[in-house]
């Protein structure tokens, strides 16, 4: 599927799947006071992104840094994602690697087994109360006169060539932070808007190429900060 096709699919999915929290109060899926009382030590899972975005490791590090800083500032003890990443790596070795030795394709059953056992092993090995996941997601938001406002951020679409301002739905990325308890029950979910994934080319909306994502460090950090701002 070409990039435009991917964007269209993502837009379609977003119509039913976009789930940005409307206000900071909505971020807590359990009583906020109980959350703060019950959960003191938070482990982080490695930062994940929609494969379409081709997120560089340096961006993942930035996002984790911002989330960690906020959690620590609020008095939480944080177990870095490197702990879970280490367990995963060990387990990948135990199953003989995730790639098929001949075809080089990822063995999905092994990948799933490693993922599931690694989470369970983290809970078995470490003393912590909740697990936080950080993910860069793609969804669609309405654009009014070339401006988009979503998940706590406002931006204007870049454009090439002249054309009238118009309104449509555009694909954007957001940073989501979700926190779960040991039974995988969601406790917290909030989004921070990152950047539009499309630009105006005269009268058309065109998808940006992946090399034009994640270029603005300030935006990246701000998106993570918004996603943890209710904490």
């Amino acid at each position, binding site marked *: 599927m070409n990039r435009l096709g991917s964007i269209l699919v993502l837009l*379609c999915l977003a119509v039913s799947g976009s789930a940005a929290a409307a206000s900071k109060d909505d971020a807590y899926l359990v009583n906020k006071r109980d959350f703060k009382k019950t959960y003191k030590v938070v482990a982080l899972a490695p930062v994940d992104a929609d494969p379409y975005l081709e997120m560089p490791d340096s961006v993942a590090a930035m996002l984790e840094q911002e989330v960690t800083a906020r959690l620590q500032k609020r008095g939480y003890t944080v177990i870095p994602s490197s702990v879970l990443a280490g367990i995963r790596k060990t*387990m990948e070795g135990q*199953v003989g690697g995730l790639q098929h030795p001949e075809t080089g394709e990822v063995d999905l059953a092994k990948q799933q087994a490693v993922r599931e056992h690694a989470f*369970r092993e983290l809970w078995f090995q470490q003393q912590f109360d909740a697990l936080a996941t950080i993910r860069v997601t793609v969804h669609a938001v309405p654009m009014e006169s070339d401006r988009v406002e979503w998940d706590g951020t406002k931006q204007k679409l870049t454009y090439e060539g002249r054309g009238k301002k118009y309104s449509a739905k555009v694909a954007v990325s957001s940073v989501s932070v979700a926190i779960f308890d040991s*039974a995988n029950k969601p406790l917290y979910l909030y989004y921070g808007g990152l950047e539009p994934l499309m630009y105006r080319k005269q009268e058309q909306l065109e998808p940006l190429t992946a090399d034009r994502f994640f270029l603005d460090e300030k935006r990246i950090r701000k998106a993570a900060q918004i996603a943890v701002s209710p904490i």
Partner: protein
Amino acid sequence: MKKRMPLLGLSLLLAATAAYAAKVVPAYESPSLPVEADEIDLWERASSHENRLRNAGTVFHDRHMEAYIEALAARMLGDSIDHLGIEIDFVLVREPTLSAWAYPYGTIGLHTGLLVRMDNEAQFGAILAHEISHFLQRHTYREMLDGDKQSKVGKGLGFLASLAMAKETGTFDKGVMDIAGNLWENLATSGYSKKNEYVADEEGLELMMRAGLPIDEAIPAFEALGENEVYGAGDPRKMWSSHPRLEDRIKNLRKEIKRAKRKKTFVDADMPVAQDYFRGIAPALLMNARLDINERKFRRAREALEKYLMVVPDDPEAHYLVGETYRRANPLGPEFESCQAAYRSALEHDSAFAPALKELGMTYRVQRQGAAARDAFEQYLEHAANAADAGIIRAYLETL
């Protein structure tokens, strides 16, 4: 499941054709094929929608279950089955929410979540009869002719159908929904008009009686719809329980039941045996329990598994899944007795049932019961030496 259930014949079709001209839409007491261009268009678009749903990969096929539902519908339609015209078909969707809907040409859509929430054949029959009535009464077409003035009265079955389809097809399909002035979209977001819902309620009771089902069971069936839970992004509760309309509908049903019972011809039917129903829908009970477990609806899953085990007590997978409902709710304990008992029940029925052996080992490991964990893991590897996680389990064994 392409058993065709014909309805009525030519004379009524001619009468219907005459009535079309005046835009007075007769019921399909009766139908045959539509003759008006707008109704043909409606059928084509709905059919395209159904095809997309069927190709989305979430349709649940089980011949035994399909035959059971078809037989129940045949009892409702009675003699009219002998008159050629149109057919009733079913599309069963793997989806834990409670939803049913009727395509304008007689295909009835059913979520497995709805099937498993019903406690007997009469309750399921009440919903099925209601949907068949929407078809027989040509309510989709009537709504189209009426425009949107009535269809915004309340919310109903249509929204859930569309929500489900949006999930399954990846998009809320306005291309199909938006028929003749947003008709289908209105149905999708607002349900049928109050009048048409009441007509379907009333005719639904008639169909239940024809099938020999106790009509009182329509009440718990509709009440169960109000207990629809939140799954994923949608909130089906808003469609049913929080809207006064469901209460109105139940109130109306009570009135209709009383009226039906006052008729001299009324014959009270016996309560059907619950197990007969559970046997009929057994594959859905097991499959939907898996969906509910994945959605962390553990109590719901356990209820479905209890129904399943009443009629298929020897299935190790069902016992294992009961164990999963307990373990996943509290994976770190401290209580492991319930899940371990369920895993052991699975192994009593099949001592080589690998998933139960593994989870037994995993729970013993969390409890630091090294010997018991070792025993379970060794048996697991004996029966699942090539499992994707075999290497990980071997590594666990080295630490015990």
